[in-house]
């Protein structure tokens, strides 16, 4: 591991795979095929894109001009909730998508689904970082550009993720769309199960807590 970090080729590979993300942005079908089949993507680059996305999610609260979005009431801000708003759906999507596609001839492995999804998120930081800076130089009349472009960033990223899933699982278009919808449904099912699980656990814990309390009162 340490030895790998000392080698120059490691960094060259990382840099090349990160640059490959931009190729995927502009040539999604070709790019995402090569991502896994030609092993041109790396986990390091995928993590970098994910961290960049998380960073801009947080930083845009502070550095977007109040002219284009309503100012933030800092007392209500919980940074972990903001990070979770990206990480939690991402985890659900990756697990849900892999769990379904692996049963239906999907060629992508769990790690590859994660990597491709992260690569697909690249338009978000790429568009939002300059947009956040530019927002400080616009008036209310021009605020519409910000709203449109930030919506576009999300739509672009969503399209890329869908395209990426089709390529890594080697699915046809119709099958890809079907499994995208199925994956979203799987996410809902998982949320339901998690809620059920946590409410059961908390009820169970509450039962034993009250049992102990009762005992303590009696003694």
């Amino acid at each position, binding site marked *: 591991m340490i030895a790998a970090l000392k080698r120059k080729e490691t960094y060259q590979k990382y840099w090349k795979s990160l640059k490959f993300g931009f190729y995927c942005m502009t040539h999604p079908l070709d790019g995402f095929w090569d991502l896994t089949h030609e092993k041109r993507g790396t986990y390091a680059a995928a993590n970098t894109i994910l961290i960049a996305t998380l960073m801009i999610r947080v930083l845009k609260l502070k550095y977007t001009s*109040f*002219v284009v979005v309503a100012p933030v009431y800092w007392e209500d801000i919980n940074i972990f909730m903001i990070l979770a708003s990206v990480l939690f759906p991402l985890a659900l999507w990756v697990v849900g998508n892999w769990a379904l596609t692996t049963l239906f001839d999907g060629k992508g492995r769990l790690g590859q689904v994660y990597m491709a999804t992260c690569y697909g998120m690249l338009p978000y930081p790429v568009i939002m970082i300059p947009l956040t800076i530019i927002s400080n*130089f616009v*008036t*209310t*009349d021009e605020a519409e550009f910000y709203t449109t472009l930030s919506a576009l960033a999300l739509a672009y990223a969503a399209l890329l993720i869908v395209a990426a899933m089709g390529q890594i699982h080697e699915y046809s278009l119709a099958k890809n769309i079907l499994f995208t919808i199925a994956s979203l449904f799987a996410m809902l099912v998982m949320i339901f199960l998690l809620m059920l699980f946590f409410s059961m656990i908390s009820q169970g814990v509450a039962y034993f807590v009250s049992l102990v309390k009762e005992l303590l009162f009696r003694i």
Partner: protein
Amino acid sequence: MIQDRKGQHMKKRILKIGALLLSAVVTLTAFMPMTAYATDTDYSYTYNYDYWGDVQDTPDLYTVCRVFTSSDLGLEVGMKNPAGLYVYGDLVYICDSGNNRIIEAKRTATESLEVVRIIDSFKGNVDVTTFNNPTDIAISEEGNFFIADQGNARVLKLDKDFNYLMQFDKPVDNTLDPALEFLPNKIVIDPAERVYCIASGINKGLIKYENDGVFSGFVGATPVSYDWMDYIWKKFSTQEQRALLASFVPTEYDNIYIDHEGFIYAVTSAISEDDLREDKGNPVRKLNLMGNDILVRNGNYTIIGDLYFGAGGGYEGPSMFSDITVMENDIYVCLDRNRGRLFGYDDQGNLVFAFGGNGNMDGYFRRPVAIEHMGHDLMVLDTLDSAITLFITTEFGELIYDAIEQFDDGNYEQSGASWERVKQLDGNYDLAYIGIGRALLRQERYKEAMEYFELKYDDENYSKAFKQYRKEWVEENIGIIVAVILAVFLIPMIIGKIKSIKREIDTADIFK
């Protein structure tokens, strides 16, 4: 009479002593176990809402100068359910509806109001020359009196010596139920002596009469709108269910006021809490000649009085406006009969002040029904107390009005200085920052103006200042901008050119 006045004073004094004792007990008990309790003094009488909608205490803009009860005015027969108030110069007219008379009083000094005459009948060639439950009075520029004589189903027009001139009767209109009794409630007169009238039970808008007494139509009715969900719901419900559903009728106005420019301000309290929360029905409207609502609503919050209508402490439900008055500086004050408060808004719809409350103390109300202004001073008529509360501006209030009026007059530097003083007195007063910013904007000091607007998140004004600032910046730095753009295009081109030349040299045959 003197006895009476003394009695009133005693009453107020006893109340005050009682309140003092109570607060003393509360403070004592609070100190003993070394814990703090919330007392009345924890929040101020006057308040405002900041950008976030949080209540911010402010210094008082108005203070109670005096409360005039019947005995203070020296009336032998006390007022009974007074309903209307009108100010004409330094004269104050009170519609003492319960006693079927109108009281004319003159403001002789800042804190004195003296009854000039009591009008309970008029001369003229009509059957009934007395009033029956007069609810409102208005005076035209020529000095003619217009009185809503509700019990006699007419609006009277009398000359300045109370001689009968004419009357306005129930409008002749096919859409009106012939059995409906005509109950004129509130009236205003425009400069051409046209009469606009609110009558109980008529929800088609304001009844408009030409100056010759001819009914010329309804103005300012709210367009009735309901969404398709309601429509479908109604389609599937039975006759009985339909009757129970809220009916889609236009709202009835509660009171009107005509400002110095001839625009009619109207208030209504017939708007549901949900609609108020969702900013649907507008309880305050400014009507133009066509009857369209042209009130400017640029404030951070909607013009509904109190933003939060939680119950407790003698308050329940949203603000319900019973009257409105518009000052010469376009600040309009709405009187809230439910929460006993006064809300002042500026011409942009920003809340300037909110004060008052329900209670028996001076400056608190039980059922306020009418408000009028005399210069900057405000008069509020409480029908249950049968008393008029006279508010006069404090130094702080006068400063704010100065700042607003100086700005309207174009004295931007002075206005900025006045707002600066306001800011020093109350650093939480948002309008002061925006006022300083607007003054700076007019003085073309854009960068400073932007800072003030940014502090209070005023994006519209910030954008105005920023647009100018950006323009100036671009004009000053046009050379650098052109140079940068050229550099961005030229440097890669030159580098590319050099590289290709180098490659040609490297691969040239002669060097091999």
